[in-house]
């Protein structure tokens, strides 16, 4: 009967024999998307894998020469590339830690009865919906040493943020924290509001202290969702390009995506940049794998 047909794809059944068969419909619905992604995502990557073994430069008409693993060997032995990775790692740590502290902290504060809670939450979420490049540009004015409101509000005089090699990366991270703490807050709030009330009541009856309650009840129950937020933000921070590229041009803020962009589209070392792209790609896919595992785990709960 029809109820069985829904998932069994039984072509002999009555319902499935009318019109297109279920298998045909399934393929009709799924195959175009898979093909589209293969043509516009996977094929280009195969194309660039080929170029990564050559000395091709897209700015000249010279044909590409096969150089084997030379690009990879040189990149992995290049201390400057490792410096770019180190800057990226520092950026990821500062930015994600800041987002977790601010985001989770705000979620803890919001997780109670507050007048206009819905409106406040929506307003807090606004920054993460905006364009990084466009809003990031405006932060240049906010950070301006002579007339920026940040220095004015903090009484820092003419403190240099973006032109200061030691400060620039932190300035970029602060803007990123402003944009993406709301994301951590949103997910944390969902986790916090799902903690059953009776657990807190039981803890109160047992005269458990606030620290015990937090570390033994709140944190373990919120952890899976918080992990999703942390892994996702780690991945995004690792790939970061827009903000750092727009806000500064300091060597101390040259994260790996910016190095890759310059290598590919300013120095036109196409072959070498394809090799670097592959190194970055493998790292991103590793994080994605962990991310999807957590997504599915939370989904199944």
């Amino acid at each position, binding site marked *: 009967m029809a109820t069985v047909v829904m998932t069994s794809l039984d072509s002999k059944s009555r319902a499935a024999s009318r019109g297109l068969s279920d298998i045909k419909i399934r393929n009709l619905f799924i195959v175009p998307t898979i093909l589209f992604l293969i043509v516009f995502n996977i094929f280009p990557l195969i194309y660039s894998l080929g170029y990564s073994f050559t000395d091709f430069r897209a700015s000249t008409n010279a044909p590409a020469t096969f150089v084997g693993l030379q690009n990879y060997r040189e990149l992995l032995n290049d201390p400057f590339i490792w410096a770019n990775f180190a800057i990226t790692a520092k950026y990821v740590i500062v930015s994600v830690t800041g987002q977790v502290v601010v985001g989770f902290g705000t979620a803890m504060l919001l997780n109670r009865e507050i007048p206009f809670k819905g409106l406040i939450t929506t307003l807090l979420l606004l920054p993460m919906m905006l364009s990084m490049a466009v809003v990031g540009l405006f932060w240049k004015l906010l950070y301006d040493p002579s007339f920026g409101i940040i220095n*004015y509000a903090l009484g820092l005089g003419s403190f240099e943020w973006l032109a200061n090699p030691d400060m620039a990366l932190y300035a970029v991270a602060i803007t990123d924290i402003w944009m993406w703490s709301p994301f951590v807050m949103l997910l944390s709030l969902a986790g916090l509001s799902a903690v059953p009330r009776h657990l807190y009541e039981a803890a109160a009856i047992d005269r458990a202290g606030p620290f015990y309650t937090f570390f033994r009840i709140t944190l373990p129950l919120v952890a899976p969702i918080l992990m999703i937020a942390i892994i996702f933000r780690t991945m995004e921070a690792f790939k970061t390009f827009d903000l750092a590229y727009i806000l500064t041009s300091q060597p101390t803020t040259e994260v790996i995506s910016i190095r890759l962009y310059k290598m590919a589209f300013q120095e036109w070392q196409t072959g070498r940049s394809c090799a670097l792209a592959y190194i970055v790609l493998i790292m991103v896919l590793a994080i994605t794998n962990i991310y999807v595992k957590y997504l599915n785990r939370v989904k199944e709960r």
Partner: protein
Amino acid sequence: MAAVQTRSERALNLVAIAAVLVITLLFLAPIYWITSTAFKPRNLATTIPPTVIFEPEISPFVKLFTKRSQLRAAPEPEDYAAAPWWERLVFEGGEKVVRSGRGEVQLSGYPNRFMNSLIVAITSTVLAVGMGTFTAYGFSRFKMKGEADLLFFILSTRMLPPVVVAIPMFLMYRAVGLNDTHWGLIILYTAFNLSFSVWLMKGFIDEIPKEYEEAALVDGYTRLEAFFKIVLPEAATGIAATAVFCFITAWNEYAFALIMTNRRAQTAPPFIPSQVGSGLPDWTVIAAGTFLFLLPVAIFTFLLRNHLLRGMSFGAIRK
């Protein structure tokens, strides 16, 4: 919450509410500053102490949409008399600007970039949500081998760093002439949003009870009719939410647009930063351009507020 609160609990609550208000104001401060700068006369945009109270002007928007050359002298009276009302606003701002070469005031690059953004974002959204809905239904209702692997493959395409994809795409587009075209960007944004759309729509379609279609099939509908007449109307909210997410992503995208376009098809995100050249930028004009660009997203965020959590977690977390 317990009906009876102790005094310390109540005090703690008040402190938390006050802290939330302070945090909210801090988070909104940059957005407020963009908005207020967009309506300031130029000489009040960069003052110390910052100007908070002022008479709002729309001259930044006039300057945003038009282009003129700067002269050292103030405009002649006959120039002023001949100028349309919006041009007078610019003169009255005290800026020594007149019509470029005493010829026509030209349209600036902004309206064109804004239109490009609209064309690219809307077309790619329609394609991504359209294809994504069909695919999500396929995954939601039919079993297949390697389903989890396929879904992982689809999601992983979304996670690729834009610059990594852009290098080969740039070469391929150059070969087929898609560089600096609307379709070039539309294809990239559709591919980027397609995976998101599949994951999110699958969550929405999973929630529609299968019994609805079963009843329709028993009534003599074909599977396709059941999909179009039963499932699609039920999924309308989900489709709308997914579309808004895809639109915002495409609207905000920067790296692909920077690499793949330069004049004809350039969208607003790479254009707005390019206005800050050398010398002192006119921040009121940049703020005006930023304000207009952010406005649609701010409106959509309010419409979308109940679905944000779901969208941001690729449909894994539902409220």
